[in-house]
């Protein structure tokens, strides 16, 4: 059982460029933590530093209260699942799973028991005698998981384990890994570039960009209260809309004003906006596609937050439609019910749910709320 702590961790490959900068994180025992971000954001490097495959340039790494900066990977009591599985091609599935235990001089009977138990959990018992090349992608990924499970490590490290699988299998394995975590009750650190995986699997999510942590929080926190424009746009699909405009005060009320939009902001936010000193200045208004409505009833509820926009494309997905709009040069996406009557190349009125809007500083892109 282990807690993992990273204190002011840096990774530099060259003297002046840091791939990971001042990484601070306290990962609780049994937590499922997801590191997410675009490629090159440093998430994999961070995981590899925890694994011991990359040296830590600066800072401290503790696994279960033990400083492990200079400890060999094999002595960190971790197991890792790789993106391309990394099964030993010259060994059978059984040998692949048993290899780590054999090196640790675990008794034959114990190895056999653990391998067969893991194989049973992962439903790969019938494959134990085969070689990796005789297996499908999904089966290989199960074996890779099995190889990690049998080791009974303190921490599981997973580096984009699902990204080589096809879409359907990925959804299935996602649920299986989540189930596995509930069953094994072990700390998991999971790297992905897929925000859906992050949202659905993580107890907590760490969003990274350019080697810096952008935000740490539960999926709900990250989704509902993003720290900045990057996090807001990265998490959620389709991603959040951003409109640039000015914050103006008129008769004691605050309005977000851009061409085609004059949105009265909720009174409860006035204090925050005034404190941020953005009244009379340019701001970025963020709103998620599901909070842009076309139903007449909602339009009546928010008469002060309607916008007029030109419909460019309507994508019917079955249960719902994505409507791509042009709001005087700024793009806007609305996620509406499939029965909506919106037609392409028309002008429509849409209501923004002002209780769900976000406002960001125009220059720093940091969230005000």
């Amino acid at each position, binding site marked *: 059982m282990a807690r993992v702590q990273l204190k002011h961790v840096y990774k530099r490959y060259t003297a002046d460029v840091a791939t990971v900068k001042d990484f601070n994180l306290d990962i609780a025992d049994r937590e499922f933590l997801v590191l997410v971000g675009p490629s090159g954001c440093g998430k994999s490097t961070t995981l590899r530093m925890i*694994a*011991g*495959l990359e040296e830590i340039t600066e800072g401290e790494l503790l696994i279960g209260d033990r400083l492990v900066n200079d400890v*060999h*990977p*094999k002595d960190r009591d*971790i*197991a*890792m699942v*790789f*993106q*391309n*599985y*990394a*099964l*030993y*091609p*010259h060994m059978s599935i059984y040998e692949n799973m048993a*290899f*780590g235990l054999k*090196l*640790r001089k675990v008794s034959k009977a114990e190895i056999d028991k653990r391998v067969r138990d893991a194989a049973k959990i992962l439903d790969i018992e019938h494959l134990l005698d085969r*070689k*990796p*090349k*005789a*297996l499908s*992608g999904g089966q*290989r990924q199960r074996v890779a998981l099995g*190889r990690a499970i049998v*080791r009974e490590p303190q921490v599981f490290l997973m580096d984009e384990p699902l990204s*080589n699988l096809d879409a359907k299998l990925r959804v299935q394995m996602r649920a299986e890994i989540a189930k596995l975590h509930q069953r094994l009750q072990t700390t998991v650190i999971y790297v992905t570039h897929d925000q859906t995986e992050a949202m659905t699997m993580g107890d907590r999510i760490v969003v990274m960009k350019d080697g810096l942590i952008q935000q740490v929080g539960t999926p709900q926190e990250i989704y509902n209260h993003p720290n900045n424009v990057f996090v807001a746009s990265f998490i959620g699909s389709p991603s959040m809309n951003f409109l640039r405009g000015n914050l103006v005060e008129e008769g004691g009320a605050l309005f977000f004003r851009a061409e085609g939009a004059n949105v009265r902001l909720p009174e409860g936010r006035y204090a925050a906006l005034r404190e941020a000193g953005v009244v009379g200045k340019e701001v970025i208004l963020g709103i998620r596609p599901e909070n842009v409505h076309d139903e007449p009833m909602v339009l009546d509820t928010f008469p002060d937050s309607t916008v007029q926009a030109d419909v460019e494309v309507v994508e019917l997905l079955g249960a719902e439609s994505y409507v791509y709009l042009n709001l005087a040069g700024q793009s806007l996406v609305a996620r509406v019910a499939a029965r909506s009557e919106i037609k392409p190349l028309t002008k429509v009125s849409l209501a923004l749910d002002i209780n769900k809007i976000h406002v960001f500083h125009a220059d720093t892109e940091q969230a005000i709320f």
Partner: protein
Amino acid sequence: MINRISWTERVLVHAVLILFAVIAVFPFLWLLSTSFKPAAEIFTSEIHLVPETFTWENYQYLFAMKDNLFLKWIWNSVFVALLTTVLAVFLSATTAYALSRFNFPGKRGVMYSFLLTQMFPAAILIVPLYNLIKNLGLLNSYTGLILAYMTTALPFCVWMLKSYFDSIPVELEEAAKVDGLNTWGTFYRIVLPLALPGLAVTGFFAFITAWNEFLFALTFMSEQSAYTLPVGLRTFVFQFRTDWHYMSAGAVLITIPVLLFFAVAQRWLVSGLTAGGSKG
């Protein structure tokens, strides 16, 4: 696809292939045939692929040479070629692995210096090499000859194996590290087994070059008892005549170990052993 090729085309293709096969095999068959002919039959103007008088005499002569010379040559050749192979494979595997996986100062220099020695024809290298080996007091010794063979075998083997190691996914080694192996263990238990086809090819190359080599052996081994087989064969060539019958028998005997070696090594020459360990 095969159905689209017409019957005449197929006949034509096979005819051409058979022609080339015959061209390729004929010299060896002729050699084999000559080795079983008595000297008198070799110098007739008629061509007989099957000897009119079949005889083992030529072979018997070789093994009955004075001082068991021929047997000594066989032993010299076997010893030198095998040791060259073992050393070349071991040294090039470790060198190539270092070049493939680690970054260190002078890495490029090492790689290019290997290429550099390959750029000169043996005739140019032989003089400085002779001086070197003479000064080291290694003339007529196995060590000297093996050292000389290393200079040709190693560069090729290192480059060959480096590209082979490059093709082994590094994640396999990382997985092994996490599983509990140190660097040497990873090399020995994960990388080498996966590189067997590459090792077989380099081993085969090293063996063949050493086994067939003539120029170095001729220059460095001046005592008759220290000859290797190719140099030994030359003793059947005299100023005014050549003992073709003995020479061809000797040549057949030289070929056999290469064929055997190939038969053993060829099952490792099949690539694709790494398939399945990772995606793709």
